[in-house]
């Protein structure tokens, strides 16, 4: 919020009338619950939202993985008839879209949501209700997208869905409509979330938390949000044009009517390439937290880590056409993009080498989290190196659309992004849920997974170089693809087993924890960043007291000094520097129905667009009701919560308006609360998102559709 000093909220009601106490739209009571199942639907707590992102995307990992298993089973032997060609095309398309948009991105969003505020020392994100909105929009969009399976079949154009094969003429089923509308909906969610988190990082940092003191994970996630902010509108344009073609009879991609199929390719990949870095950078961030922690050394070359992340994000905008080397664009374009792509290896190499330098000379504890991070370093390098071999355009004309590419992107996506995310799960699980995952099972998980992973995707390099094209529903005897395909299939089943082990681990550890609760304590790994300062699981208000940051790796430096050889020396017991989590009277935004209501409108509108416009009507009503309900609802329920709706306590909400009056109020703490009268009762004064927040949400709807 932070209304700048000169512009306090207006008393529009000429002073004497008290501001209206708005009971939100009469019928509904403001949700109050902060516990129990119902609270999950109305929560605006970034931690709960993060957890929901996590569980939902893990569910979709199972869905997408099941589709992958179908693919692999079909391809196990030549001429297999398990899936028809039509079904196969749907399955791999849905697999790709699911894994990219419904698994890796939201799983990264889960970590971003949970950790960003904690790592920068904030109580929540900048716009908590918009955060809930992002979750619901994404989740309902994802469900909407998957309902296509039951409504005439999934999308069948491949995840990049080249026109004109994606037009109604060539794909008359509704699958691609669901793709277009579903991705538009999820795009709205992601845009809102990206703007929200960008503002959070820029604006909500604890005192002293300068940009160059932020943990690397925060940095990478921040870069990802910026990439999202700029990449999503591009695919939005592409999808709008596709929707216009498919639903309203336009001919943007129909060559016989002057449309240009290349336009789709460019728009998709202008988005698509930043997108792949959107998927990998969060995992780079996670590895950059895990490796230093378990090596007991600070990250090596922090400024270079940050800088290379920025460089990757930036260069990612200039290489998109490397997906189009064989598409027939002119040789000069090919040359330019080929050279640009090659050099993206440089900043990425800096990262790999810095991780190794961090491990060098360390004292490495091989917890499961660390195993996954080291696995990432090794596996991503393989994927990255094959990526560099694609960057050579002449070579790529042999490689593109073969399994060599499939191998490349699974090594970076699975061996990079997903390994990182699993690493993060093992690392932060105790922080999030208050119990450890079993290390023994975790190691089984890791070793099975890395074995299965290499068995699955390693052979694909060979298959691809030997000419096996991707997106083929079958191959024949005599093409020489038999053996390695079988190996790959076996590997895929091994991966499935490893994921079952993981799930079993979660369940078993939870049961054990229930039977015999052992709290891991705030700082189970002797870690470095601020989130380890608060109890596990994180209390709802995050920090009892917002820490004042003086250093990179602030928490570590509160625990350790160092001797003259630079070796760490304890200066304080962990118990003394962590927070108790028992603060009371912390002011937090109140839960709200409206994000869910608003989000629920979108899929209905989607069904309406696809099947019958009348169905869009209830959707539109929900949408509008959601928006106005939201605007009319103060973000903080004056009568809710912590037991004092009166204002004789100078708690945060009263204090801040006044604090803002104070230009240099270093002691903006409690004293200033005395003049809080002015801001008192002014609902909008203390909300982190004044009315305009919802106005910008409106804009979002207008803008991204």
């Amino acid at each position, binding site marked *: 919020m932070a209304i700048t000093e000169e512009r306090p909220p207006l008393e529009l009601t000429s002073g004497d009338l008290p501001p209206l106490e708005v009971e939100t739209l009469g019928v509904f009571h403001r949700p109050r619950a902060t516990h129990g199942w119902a609270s999950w639907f109305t929560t605006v707590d970034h931690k709960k939202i993060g957890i929901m992102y996590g569980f939902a995307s893990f569910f979709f990992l199972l869905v997408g993985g099941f589709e992958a298993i179908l693919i692999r089973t079909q391809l196990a032997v030549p001429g297999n008839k398990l899936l028809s*060609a*039509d079904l*196969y*095309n749907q399955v791999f398309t849905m697999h790709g879209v699911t894994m990219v948009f419904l698994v890796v991105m939201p799983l990264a969003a889960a970590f971003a949501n949970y950790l960003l505020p904690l790592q920068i020392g904030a109580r929540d994100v900048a716009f908590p209700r918009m955060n809930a909105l992002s979750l619901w929009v994404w989740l309902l969009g994802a469900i909407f997208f998957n309902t296509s399976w039951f409504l005439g079949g999934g999308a069948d154009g*491949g995840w990049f869905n*080249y026109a004109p*094969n994606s037009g109604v*003429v*060539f794909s*008359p089923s509704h699958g691609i409509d669901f793709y277009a509308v579903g991705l538009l909906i999820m795009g709205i969610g992601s845009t809102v979330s990206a703007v929200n988190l960008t503002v959070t990082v820029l604006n909500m940092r604890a005192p002293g938390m300068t940009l160059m003191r932020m943990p690397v994970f925060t940095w990478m996630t921040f870069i990802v949000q910026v990439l999202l902010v700029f990449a999503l509108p591009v695919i939005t344009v592409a999808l709008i044009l596709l929707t216009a073609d498919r639903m309203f009879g336009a001919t943007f991609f129909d*060559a*016989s009517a002057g449309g240009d*199929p290349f336009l789709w390719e460019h728009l998709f990949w202008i988005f698509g390439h930043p997108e792949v870095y959107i998927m990998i950078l969060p995992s780079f961030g996670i590895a950059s937290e895990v490796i230093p922690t378990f*090596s007991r*050394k*600070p990250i*090596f070359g*922090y400024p270079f880590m940050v800088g290379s992340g920025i460089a990757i994000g930036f260069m990612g905008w200039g290489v998109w056409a490397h997906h189009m080397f*064989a*598409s*027939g664009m002119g*040789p000069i374009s090919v040359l330019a993009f080929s050279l640009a792509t*090659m*050099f993206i290896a*440089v900043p990425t190499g*800096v990262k*790999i080498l*810095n991780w*190794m*330098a961090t*491990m060098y000379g*360390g*004292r*490495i504890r*091989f917890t499961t989290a660390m195993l996954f991070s*080291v696995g990432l370093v*090794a596996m991503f390098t393989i994927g990255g*190196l094959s990526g*560099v071999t694609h960057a*050579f*355009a*002449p*070579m790529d*004309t*042999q*490689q593109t*659309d*073969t399994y060599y590419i499939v191998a490349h992107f699974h090594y970076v996506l699975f061996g990079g992004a997903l390994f990182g995310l699993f690493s993060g799960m093992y690392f932060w699980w105790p922080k999030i849920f208050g119990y450890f995952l079993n290390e023994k099972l975790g190691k089984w998980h890791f070793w099975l997974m890395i074995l299965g992973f290499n068995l699955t995707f390693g052979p694909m390099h*060979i298959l691809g*170089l030997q*000419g096996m*094209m*991707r*997106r083929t529903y*079958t191959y024949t005897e005599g*093409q*020489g693809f038999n053996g390695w395909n079988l190996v790959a299939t076996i590997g895929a089943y091994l991966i499935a087993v490893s994921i079952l082990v993981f799930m079993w681990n979660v369940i078993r550890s939870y049961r054990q924890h229930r039977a015999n609760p052992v709290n891991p304590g705030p700082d189970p790994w002797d870690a470095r960043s601020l989130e380890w300062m608060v109890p596990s699981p994180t209390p709802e208000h995050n920090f009892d007291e917002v820490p004042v940051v003086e250093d990179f790796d602030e928490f570590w430096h509160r625990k350790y000094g*160092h001797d003259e050889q630079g*070796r760490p*020396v304890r200066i304080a017991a962990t118990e003394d520097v962590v927070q108790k989590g028992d603060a009371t009277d912390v002011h937090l935004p109140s839960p709200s129905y409206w994000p869910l209501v608003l989000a629920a409108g979108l899929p209905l509108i989607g069904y309406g667009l696809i099947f019958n416009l009348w169905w869009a009507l209830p959707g539109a009503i929900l949408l509008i009701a959601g928006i106005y309900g939201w605007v009319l609802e103060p973000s903080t329920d004056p009568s809710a919560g912590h037991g004092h709706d009166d204002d004789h306590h100078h708690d945060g909400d009263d204090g801040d308006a006044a604090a803002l009056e104070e230009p240099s109020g270093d002691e903006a703490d409690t004293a200033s609360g005395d003049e809080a009268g002015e801001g008192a009762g002014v609902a909008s004064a203390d909300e982190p998102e004044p009315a305009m927040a919802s106005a910008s949400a409106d804009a979002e709807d207008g803008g991204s559709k």
Partner: protein
Amino acid sequence: MPRNRKATVVALISTAAILLGFWLIIRTIGQPTGKPLNTLAPFGQQAQDIQNLTIPVFAVAGVIFVLVMVAVIWMVVRFRAPDDAVEGEHEPAQTHGNTPLEIGWTIVPAVILAVLAVLNVQTLLRLDDTGENPLEVTVAGQQWWWEYRYDLDGDQTPEIVTATQMVMPAGRDVTVKIQSNDVIHSFWIPSLNGKKDAVPGRTHELVFNSDNPGIYEGQCTEFCGLSHGVMRMQVKVLPPAEYDVWIREMTKAPAQPTSAAASRGEALFVGQCARCHEVNGLTPDSTPPFTYSDEPSPDYGVEVDSSLSSKNAPNLTNFMMRQTFAGNLLALWEGDAATAVVAVPGQVPGATPDKVNIKRWLRNPQDVKPMDAENNQGMPNLNLSEDQIDDLTEYLVTLGPSTRPAA
């Protein structure tokens, strides 16, 4: 330091293991036998150019791969915390970074890449060279087969229209002009050159030049719908003399069928098939006695409506000059004739047409290859009776030089 030694030993062992693995793979990976689409077995000049770039790039990538892997393994062993590690003892020095080092490992990869970039550019320019006096062949992709048009006299109308198997002379530059009649496809003969997309509304060029007569497999590699996975084709590189024979045979009109069954098949063909397929001279409204022409009708396939796929179907004049059909899925000849690198497969000693395959196709084409004829994508199941199928097969096998007196 024992830990050091252990790490070194493990690293050496894993280096050896990785190198052994590489060696095993490299030994087999470039072999063409049994792997007709192998990208690492060039038989054409362009593919060879690519190969010449691939080898150094893969070598560099391989070296970096080995270095990184071995370094990781070494460190994992070397710096593993002992199980009895106690906090506060033997803590690692807190190094924060080293700027010269950072700059070093920014510059070294950049330099490596810069060197490779030179090769990259050279190869790229070389591949862009269309050569001298190239033979031009127009290739059109459609769901899910390829058509080839040879305009021999440069009058903008093709003299030869054929499908599935493209034929080219050895030792001469051939410029393939790639087009599409519906969605995006990609024309790829890995032994000869990289792939290039067929994009509706555009013409893209690809150059082939091979000194090695042979039959090279290809595959459509841009996802193009239902049967993308089996949209295959071949390029047959003939010695120049044989190629001239091929041209001569292909520009002759088919002869009138002589047997009664074939004549019945001919009439059936006009009634049932000619609305899509062309045999030079026949039209759906032709009436007996049928006369053939030695040139395809200039209208054939010109009016392709790129919002519909199968406005045209393979031109079947001289059908028997091919060795495979139905998108390279079925053999048209039995025995050696199926794979012989000759201009006229019917002249291979003992050549007999594979009627079983032809019948299989006519009985239900969708059984061979998934198609969606209702949506104008591919050939419909015409529900022919067995007799009709026999007659049609007898007719189809007359379409080619085997029935003509040898030249």
